[in-house]
């Protein structure tokens, strides 16, 4: 087995991993290795040939591959090493990685590590839809890859379960390819993804959106022939007296993304059951000191621009850690807790006093207008407060708070409360 030692290893070469590598390199670190299992750097971006990327980071409207290409050329310009077709299969709690490629097995021993493995899509099993098990049920992301990279359509008459961003983008894509998109079925009362995707992908093409409905059965023995759609009643239970059958040959699932943390689990890194990612401190550091996490592995982000931001900071902090300028994961870290109206928050932990700006990423638990977002200590002392016109769970809230005085082991809360008028 080949053995490699390095200063910084990065698991995953998507936007988060690439930004981390660049962030660390720009802090003067040179001994960096990016490990990517695919044939190319770029991650999910390679299959997102639609535009809408980079509006924040570059102030430009780019396609996914264009956005990725900018980072790839920055990686190359800095001569950062990367391994392709190499998959990390083991992570030990001494930060040692085992990776596999057709060239063999490598053991990589870095002094610091950034986790940037992205996320995976929830599949049919997780949704527990009963029925037959025919061909023609696939995740929206798989379908996207077949269309955009392989040049094949999944089917001709499509129903999409879940109105997440990928589902809505695929509805438009398939419609433009000449497929009949018979509907997007969403269990909630709002579209699950970004408003701009709802407008540009669903409304603009008159694609039927069944809000407050779910799929309760899949029919067809060999290939999908139809699905049973049932409205959800006021108690949140499918009302089978109002179910109906819609024929289709394909069911795409866009029912959520799960941060890819099998490796983190192996190394006993503490995870947040709500975000599905590791618990992080303000340096994007995990409970295993010197291991950082960025991008969708930490929490599913809505925009790649924020992913790149998080990656860059995680990379910079990894470089600072190696210089001894960042404390290890503290025993007496303070906790940041999602309170009323907040679904999740990151970072979840704060180590020592925080000079300068602290960035928080939050998601609201429900749609609301005219709200007050508070950051407070456990004695109800409000540290920061902001009025927000509209909060929607699919859209991440980004908050920067200056100079917070942190009590060791203290508890801090984010809340989103009633209307202000």
């Amino acid at each position, binding site marked *: 087995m080949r053995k490699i030692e390095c200063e910084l290893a990065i698991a995953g070469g998507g936007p988060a991993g690439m930004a981390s590598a660049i962030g660390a390199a720009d802090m003067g670190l040179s001994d960096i290795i990016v490990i990517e299992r695919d044939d190319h750097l770029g991650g999910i971006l390679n299959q997102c040939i639609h535009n809408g990327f980079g509006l924040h980071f570059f102030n430009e409207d780019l396609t996914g591959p264009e956005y990725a290409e900018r980072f790839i050329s920055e990686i190359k310009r800095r001569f950062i090493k990367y391994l392709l077709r190499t998959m990390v299969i*083991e992570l030990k709690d001494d930060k040692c990685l085992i990776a596999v490629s057709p060239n063999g097995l490598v053991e990589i021993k870095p002094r610091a590590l950034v986790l940037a493995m992205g996320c995976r*899509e929830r599949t049919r099993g997780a949704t527990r839809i009963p029925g037959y098990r025919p*061909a023609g049920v696939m995740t929206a992301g798989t379908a996207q890859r077949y*269309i955009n990279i392989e040049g094949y*359509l999944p089917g001709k008459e499509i129903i999409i379960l879940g109105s997440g961003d990928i589902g809505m983008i695929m509805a438009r894509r398939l419609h433009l390819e000449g497929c009949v998109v018979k509907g997007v079925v969403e269990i909630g009362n709002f579209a699950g993804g970004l408003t701009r995707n709802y407008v540009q992908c669903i409304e603009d093409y008159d694609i039927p959106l069944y809000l407050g409905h779910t799929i309760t059965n899949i029919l067809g*023995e060999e290939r999908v022939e139809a699905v049973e759609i049932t409205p959800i009643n006021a108690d949140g239970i499918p009302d089978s007296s109002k179910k109906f059958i819609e024929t289709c040959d394909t069911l795409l699932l866009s029912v959520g993304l799960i941060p890819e943390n099998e490796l983190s689990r192996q190394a006993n890194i503490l995870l947040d059951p709500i975000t599905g990612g590791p618990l992080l401190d303000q340096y994007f550091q995990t409970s295993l000191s010197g291991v950082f996490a960025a991008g969708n592995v930490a929490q599913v982000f809505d925009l790649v621009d924020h992913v790149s931001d998080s990656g860059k900071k995680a990379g910079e902090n990894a470089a600072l850690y190696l210089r001894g300028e960042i404390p290890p994961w503290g025993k007496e870290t303070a906790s940041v807790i999602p309170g009323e109206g907040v679904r999740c928050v990151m970072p979840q932990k704060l180590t020592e006093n925080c000079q300068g700006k602290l960035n928080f990423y939050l998601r609201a638990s429900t749609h609301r207008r005219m709200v007050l977002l508070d950051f407070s200590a456990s004695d109800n002392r409000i540290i920061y407060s902001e009025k927000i016109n509209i909060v929607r769970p699919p859209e991440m809230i980004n908050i920067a708070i200056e100079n917070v005085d942190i009590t060791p082991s203290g508890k801090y809360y984010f809340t989103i409360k009633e209307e202000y008028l």
Partner: protein
Amino acid sequence: MNNNNTDVLIIGAGAIGMAVAYELSRYELSVTVVDRLNDVGGDASRSNSAIIHTGFDAPPSTLESSLVVHANPMFDRLCRELDIPFRRTGAVLVAVTEEEEEEIPEILDKAHENGVFDLYYLPARKVREMEPLITPKVRCGLYIPRESIIDPFLLVIAMAEIAVKNGVEFYRECEVKNIVYNGRSFTTETTKGKVKSKIVINAAGLNTDKISNFLGIDDFKVTPRRGQFHVIDRSAELPIRHIILPVPTKISKGKLITPTIHGNWLIGPTAEDLSDKSLSNTTRNGLDEIISDVKKLIPAIDKNYVITQYAGLRPVREPGGYHIRTFKNIPGFIELSGIRSTGITSSPAVAVFTCRKLKEMGIPLKHREAVCTVSTPLPIRKGIVMFRELNNLERAELIERDPLYGRIVCRCETVTESEVVQSIKRNPGAHDLDGIKRRVRAGLGRCQGGFCGMHIPKILARELNIPLNRVTKKGGGSFFLNGETKRFE
């Protein structure tokens, strides 16, 4: 079909048909197996509880009891022979209510009548010591150490591989449409042409009635009794080591929890009598019923760890019971029907029993020289080497010999491209996505094909030399991609 003349034609490539083919392949006979599906593995034989029973609860003094009881001890050697995993986990039968507790002495009596003597009474405390997750309401239990677990797909596939090596011919997507007997031989009409044979063995599971009917036999009917299951991911890390059985009811063994040979758990099955043989679907009610029933045994069962569900159809024969029959007026026809709830277990014994029937008919069974048989050193088959089961040094060596072992295509089960390619190239090999899944588990893990769905169809297309949009999930019209290729302007 390239050979339309054979000594023995076996209809059905499930556990029963393939066990018979495997057994017969040791003799100087030409054997052909046909199945309407796109693979070996059968119908019921691929969707069941995957338990090798002891027969402790079989109806005493029946053919089923005798075959199941005697088949169980055959598995240690059979699985070594075939190089497939097999584990004697043992079962714990749990009585939770007073009525159930009262049944325990009867269950013991019945087991003894069946000739199963190695089962032991457990007081409540001992049950909980052996299986801490079992409900504190437990009153007592039984320990049945030889109840065991197996991978039923691999069992059938492994038997098929050796049978084929020994000269058995297998035809997939070959449905029997009619059989004509002319007083001396049979002509069987299939969707792939006609086959002439001296002997026809009906191992068609749910369709044994239909097949026998072609020859005028109409004294029985087969209807489906559906059994639905949930699969629980190994990440649930349940500390359940034994098969957990409820006290059986009149119509079924009840809903159980069993570890699988690959580290997950199964919970189920339901027992629903239906009339339509195509209803292999799962239902909301069935799936909910499993969770609530199993919680009575193990309250900690949590549906959040469920990664998938499936259903199988037990072939319920009326009149009931195992029937391994020959017919005076149709010499050469053997019917294996009524093998309802224990056929994985009984299959090796059924196979030997069927050979006896052939002998009784006057068919000479002469052992063959120079074929893969039990007389060659064990194992007679080598399973596909699984990357995930090796240590890192072994893995490194393997990749050096075969770089395709360095390409992981299924991340949940850590399956490499080499394993997938081998599963296609073996004979009988996988011709579809389900076939690959059953042979090397790619796509069976927690992401259920979310990741390998990108890679495996491409490998299959390449190895079978077909376009990507001809790749199927399970043969027939089950195309993975249904759309035409994009028009590039």
